[in-house]
């Protein structure tokens, strides 16, 4: 088919209504970057996208921006900044994992207490670890270690949020991401944000804010890159959390 014959197909394609031979033919033109059809479809997509402006304007919920920024790990509670936490918490995570690998759970607990003293010294020097300490020292902060496959720790504070520090996370294929979940006892998992692991398999992810009292576990699953409203794959990690 000629470009002229496909002209009426541009907006149909942009709307998702193009069908059959015409659609295949147009896709073929686009594949070879046809100098007529490519800009034609681009303009049609621009026109169709503008139809979004017909939607009745709605007041944007103020919490939505905060949620979005929280999913990126920014825009934190006022008394500390989560991004400030990252380098400090990574260092702490490394320390925790090292301790855990060497001596197991009880030794890790002891080493954690010891590490706090070391961290305090570093905080004085670097001025960065204060938020971590503040989190760790919050009354009721619960430390949960996990191993087998992904290893690491989860810090849970009912008032301040959840901090995940993990290593040995598998590399994900393109278009996939990790998603953290808070799982209430007998209820549906609640998304606690998306995150990616570093190339070496480590990750630090924070979900600031109140943690529902009925939360009984923190889980990690692999999801499409835009995230899911409920886990769509078997979680690679389910860590019970109680007593926080």
């Amino acid at each position: 088919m000629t470009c002229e014959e496909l002209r009426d197909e541009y907006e149909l394609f942009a709307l998702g209504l193009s069908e059959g031979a015409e659609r295949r033919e147009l896709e073929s033109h686009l594949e070879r970057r046809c100098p007529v059809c490519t800009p034609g479809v681009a303009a049609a997509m621009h026109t169709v996208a503008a139809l979004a402006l017909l939607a009745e304007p709605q007041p944007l919920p103020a919490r939505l921006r905060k949620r979005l920024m929280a999913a990126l790990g920014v825009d934190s509670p006022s008394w500390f900044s989560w991004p400030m936490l990252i380098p400090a918490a990574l260092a702490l995570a490394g320390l925790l994992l090292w301790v855990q690998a060497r001596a197991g759970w009880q030794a890790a607990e002891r080493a954690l207490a010891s590490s706090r003293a070391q961290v305090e010294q570093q905080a004085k020097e670097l001025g960065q670890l204060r938020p971590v300490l503040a989190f760790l020292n919050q009354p009721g902060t619960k430390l949960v270690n996990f191993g087998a496959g992904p290893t690491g720790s989860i810090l849970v504070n009912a008032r301040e949020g959840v901090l995940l520090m993990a290593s040995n996370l598998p590399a994900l294929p393109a278009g996939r991401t990790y998603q953290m979940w808070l799982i209430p006892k007998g209820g549906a998992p609640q998304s606690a944000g998306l995150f990616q692991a570093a190339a070496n398999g480590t990750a630090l992810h924070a979900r600031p804010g109140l943690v529902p009292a009925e939360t009984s576990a923190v889980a990690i699953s692999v999801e499409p890159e835009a995230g899911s409203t409920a886990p769509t794959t078997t979680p690679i990690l389910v860590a019970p959390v109680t007593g926080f």
Partner: protein
Amino acid sequence: MLFLILSAILGPAESRRLIERLRARDAAALGELYDCYGAVVYAIILRIARDRATAEDLTQEVFLRVWNRIPTFDAERGSLSTWLLTIARHSAIDFLRSRGGKQERLNVSIDAMERPLAGGNAETELQTAGDAKRVRAAMDRLEPKHRQLLELAYFDGLSQSEMAEKLELPLGTVKTWVRSALRQLRENLQQPSGVNA
């Protein structure tokens, strides 16, 4: 109310800088994109999904998808706003269709539709306040039956067969009307509307 949320202005230079910052993983840049287009994205998703909690979830997902996909976005080949609004509509319609037990998605894959294409006015960002008036005026000049079909296709994500069934019209008639509607809409948008753009 309209002017309050349709007031985004993102010129070409600002758009380019914003894209560069997004590529540099500047989270504040995503916040600025949200400030410009969040209300439009939320409005279209709410119109399609008809549920505020779902609209909030999907709006967040749309911006996170932009955040994750920005490395593949070619700023020289299309506008950020077109890309963003295309993703928003597809996300909402996919939700609608999955909720309705329809496993099939839009007739064209999201990847293909969300890929920016070169040329035309595609590099021009939607200036929401002016373009909203222009699009409304162009739609108002359509025959009511044509306008209805475009709204069913755009906001309900109906295929031509589904529109024929819903309106109890022959499929051939729907196809003819849809083509006429789109042709007329294109011409209306190209004409000086007398509305400040």
